[in-house]
């Protein structure tokens, strides 16, 4: 195993190496320890990206296994599980349902086909189920003596009586309309799933006693059953008043109302309880169910001014403003796109509507399609930045990603260029140039561009790592030269193509007498 890999994973806390290796670092080591370790170590830190070197073991295993494939794949492995394209084993229930679904809605003919395909006969070739005996015979003929056999066989020394009767008669069959169950008997019967009339609990006192019994038994299903009864037979003021002092039951009622979607009663309840923030959130939540953008916008307007926390209030306002913007942008851009006169939309048709997207996605969209627009327009990135007070870092990250995707390298350049008071230009990035490089690489920036930004990375180690990772040969070579690190340069020589300009450059440096190598 390559040492780097071992080091990376193997130890939660190798001496001091943790900080670089990441996996289980030891923060309280002194810096001295660490550097000593690093200087004396022949190991290099494992980076997850360095697949060439570090994953060689995995690759090698893969090769070994693949080399056996010819011999193995002779297709007679009928005892192995067959897996369909979707990954479900053929014949499994999930697979079968997908088959049904995939064909439903097709023509009548198709359905007929489907019918025959899904019929029993087509499954005849499937592996036999492991247990084919039917217990149903047992249940149907409970009185026949031999039929217990199969069950007791199956359960060895377990007394069959403990669950067989329950199986034999579904709980619904137990009916008992007796009217004189006490509250505690009643909730006990409810827990067992038996039908049990609650109508005789008519006085408030009886109702509350019933509720208290249910709560003290802890079964939520029973608590809800009693609450359904109370909700039906008590005025909401009385119900709310009594629940206010019974928190467990109250939570059940709230959840129940949410589940059945009785929003009106839920809001009434929150109002009664004076839970203003929950009331506001609960009202706001409803927007999720409104599809139409204009209606949603109007609804959001009604949320502004509800008693949210100060911070949430700002978000609600932003949410409204954002959707308002999106509706305008969407209408405008859809028009532009269908008119076919605008180059950017012709070259890069929109993949989806911008409606209801998060702010950052909207910013990306606007950096992509509306980058050069004046600040006055609703769709300009600068306008979005101002309106929603987007932090500089976030703005730069997003703009960079958008412009790099369009390969607009001049825009990228401009994004990081600042002029000082003397008129000199300087490159600055609020997010650190190592991040810039990563984003550029992700967008397949050409080496010349990458190189330029790798060179701007301040930390030499990071710079060298990135340059190696992204094959910016010149940067690596120049940095080694500047560091006077002959060994590293020598090692790098093996990574560049034979006979390439880079190799020549390295050779020239290595044979140069001008440089005083440190090693």
């Amino acid at each position: 195993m390559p040492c780097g890999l071992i080091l990376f994973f193997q130890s939660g806390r190798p001496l001091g190496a943790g900080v670089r290796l990441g996996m289980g670092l030891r923060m309280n080591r002194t810096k001295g320890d660490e550097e000593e370790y690093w200087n004396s170590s022949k190991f290099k830190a494992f980076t997850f990206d360095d697949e060439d070197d570090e994953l060689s073991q995995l690759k090698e295993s893969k090769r070994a296994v693949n080399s056996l494939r010819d011999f193995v794949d002779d297709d007679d492995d009928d005892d192995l599980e067959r897996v369909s394209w979707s990954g479900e084993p053929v014949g499994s229930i999930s697979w079968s349902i997908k088959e049904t679904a995939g064909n439903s809605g097709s023509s009548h003919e198709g359905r007929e086909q489907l019918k025959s395909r899904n019929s029993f006969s087509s499954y005849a070739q499937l592996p036999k189920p492991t247990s084919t005996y039917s217990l149903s015979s047992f249940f149907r003929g409970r009185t026949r003596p031999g039929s217990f056999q199969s069950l007791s066989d199956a359960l060895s020394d377990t007394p069959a009586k403990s669950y067989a009767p329950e199986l034999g008669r579904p709980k619904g069959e137990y009916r008992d309309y007796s009217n004189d169950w006490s509250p505690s008997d009643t909730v006990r019967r409810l827990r067992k799933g038996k039908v049990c009339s609650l109508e005789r609990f008519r006085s408030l006192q009886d109702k509350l006693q019933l509720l208290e019994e249910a709560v003290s038994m802890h079964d939520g299903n029973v608590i809800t059953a009693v609450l359904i009864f109370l909700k039906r037979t008590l005025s909401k003021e009385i119900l709310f008043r009594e629940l206010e002092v019974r928190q467990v039951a109250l939570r059940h009622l709230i959840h129940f109302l949410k589940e059945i979607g009785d929003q009106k009663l839920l809001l009434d309840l929150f109002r009664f309880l004076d839970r203003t923030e929950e009331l506001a959130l609960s009202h706001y939540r409803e927007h999720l169910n409104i599809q139409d953008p204009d209606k949603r916008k109007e609804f959001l307007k009604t949320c502004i001014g509800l008693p949210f926390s100060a911070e949430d209030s700002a978000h609600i306002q932003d949410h409204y403003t954002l959707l308002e913007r999106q509706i305008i942008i969407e209408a405008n851009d859809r028009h532009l796109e269908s008119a076919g006169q605008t180059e950017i939309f012709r070259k890069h048709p929109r993949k989806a509507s911008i409606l209801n997207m998060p702010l950052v996605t909207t910013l990306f969209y606007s950096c992509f399609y509306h980058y050069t627009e004046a600040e006055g327009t609703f769709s300009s990135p600068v306008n979005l930045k101002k309106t929603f007070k987007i932090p500089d870092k976030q703005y730069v990250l997003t703009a960079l990603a958008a412009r790099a995707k369009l390969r607009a390298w001049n825009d990228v350049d401009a994004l990081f260029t600042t002029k000082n008071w003397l008129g000199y230009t300087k490159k600055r990035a609020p997010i650190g140039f190592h991040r810039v490089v990563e984003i550029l690489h992700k967008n397949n920036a050409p080496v010349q561009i990458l190189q330029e930004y790798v060179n701007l990375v301040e930390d030499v180690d990071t710079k060298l790592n990135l340059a190696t990772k992204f094959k910016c040969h010149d940067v690596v070579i120049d940095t080694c030269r500047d560091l006077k690190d002959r060994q590293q340069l020598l090692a790098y020589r093996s990574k560049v193509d034979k006979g390439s300009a880079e190799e020549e450059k390295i050779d020239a440096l290595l044979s140069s007498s001008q440089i005083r190598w440190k090693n």
Partner: protein
Amino acid sequence: MAFPHRPDAPELPDFSMLKRLARDQLIYLLEQLPGKKDLFIEADLMSPLDRIANVSILKQHEVDKLYKVENKPALSSSEQLCFLVRPRIKNMRYIASLVNADKLAGRTRKYKVIFSPQKFYACEMVLEEEGIYGDVSCDEWAFSLLPLDVDLLSMELPEFFRDYFLEGDQCWINTVVQALHLLSTLYGPFPNCYGIGRCAKMAYELWRNLEEEEDGETKGRRPEIGHIFLLDRDVDFVTALCSQVVYEGLVDDTFRIKCGKCHGPLLGTSHMAGLVFNEIRNEHFSNVFGFLSQKARNLQAQYDRRRGMDIKQMKNFVSQELKGLKQEHRLLSLHIGACESIMKKKTKQDFQELIKTEHALLEGFNIRESTSYIEEHIDRQVSPIESLRLMCLLSITENGDARCSLDTHYGPEHLLTFSNLRRAGLLTEQAPGDTLTAVESKVSKLVTDKAAGKITDAFSSLAKRSNFRAISKKLNLIPRVDGEYDLKVPRDMAYVFSGAYVPLSCRIIEQVLERRSWQGLDEVVRLLNCSDFAFTDMTKEDKASSESLRLILVVFLGGCTFSEISALRFLGREKGYRFIFLTTAVTNSARLMEAMSEVKA
């Protein structure tokens, strides 16, 4: 590499019986609707059902076509419709819409609803309101324990987490109790019971009630499992929020294991079982490459042997060994593929920095760096779920409200998610007036430093004692290690997090089992805010064999992670115990976060 159990480790009970019971009961229920019928299955029940039955079994019991329950009109032309669903309101509405559409069209069919694992009164209420009560017959399929492994039983109820820990709905407690009751019916009573958490205590009380009512059923049976330990997920959120690095956990985090099967692009539905997997799943990921390459070499050598064979030997080879080798070959290539894919994904995610940050949070070091890392993580829009997870981890470990501008980045709905996270206690808020600890004063210093950014602003109101830090100290969760932590030869449960952290949940279980009580753990229990919810109940059970006393059933209410399972398996090997896991669902950090998000109704 794979650690053998101690020779005196007890045998596990055979849980395959549970599958058979469930299958037989389902068949019985299907036959309650004689004749051809179409079966509508809820999506969440499909994978569990696949584990215990297959299409041909259903066909044998006259199921004609299978449909998924989804919000679409049904195209079924069958005269009988059977619905296999979880007891949910929206399922009832769906069924009602089908039945009412039929009624409008003047069509009569038979309908049957099978609720799994049980029926809720709220569902019946909806059937009644929709005017179809009586038109459909209802049954219950009490299938609540799916053996995913020899030592792992899952209730497959991920919704337990949200329903109980967010909404405070106790509807699943009885389901848990029924499952425990079934276990005690099949495997004898549990002489020693322990538990921590409000839900654990309620479940225990309801269970005791039930056992008293059904008096006598388990009496006189020899206990097979000596201890039961119930634990609420909210006793330890931290462990569940961490990135997993044991193989099975990592696979789950990366591809999502559903119902014991992996749904990753590479693994297909490959069984996670099989020799290869059994040997590596509890291993730290760093050991996996080496293991796989060793296996690959062995396999190659096995195949190479055929070169020098004569015809007879060849025949033997083909008839006896080839099948096994092929199987192994298939599994091996799956796992190599999985590792490749994991490495690729983790590289993209900057995994090492992520882990570094998590460990710093666990240890309580370099809060500022961690904070700015998380902020950058958000800015880079890596993944909303990941960002949420890190914020929760920061918030719980540091006990501050680490809210920041996620709304801007991931859509305004996160307002609702935040509110949910707070209510569930995944984002903590501070109570005023508490004294400052060392950690907190460090954090408050950061607050004055504008450069630390937005998240730290949220710390300005930080005042509450950091309970996690105190608990961690008390229970020694951050092992003091000099030198290297050799992950090949783990020395404690911390190996599941690269030696940096012993899972809190597992440590609690270890400590209580050691003492056979909560004695001496009062302070920890108090810090966990569980003073009223930690309990022990021992019966003087002479019949319990010494073997059964080393079998422990751990019940995770709200889900457990593969890392916790691995850690306890390790503990078991060390102490000569064996653990059996019963969980409402196997979970991980992403599932916890997703359970807290708000979607349209």
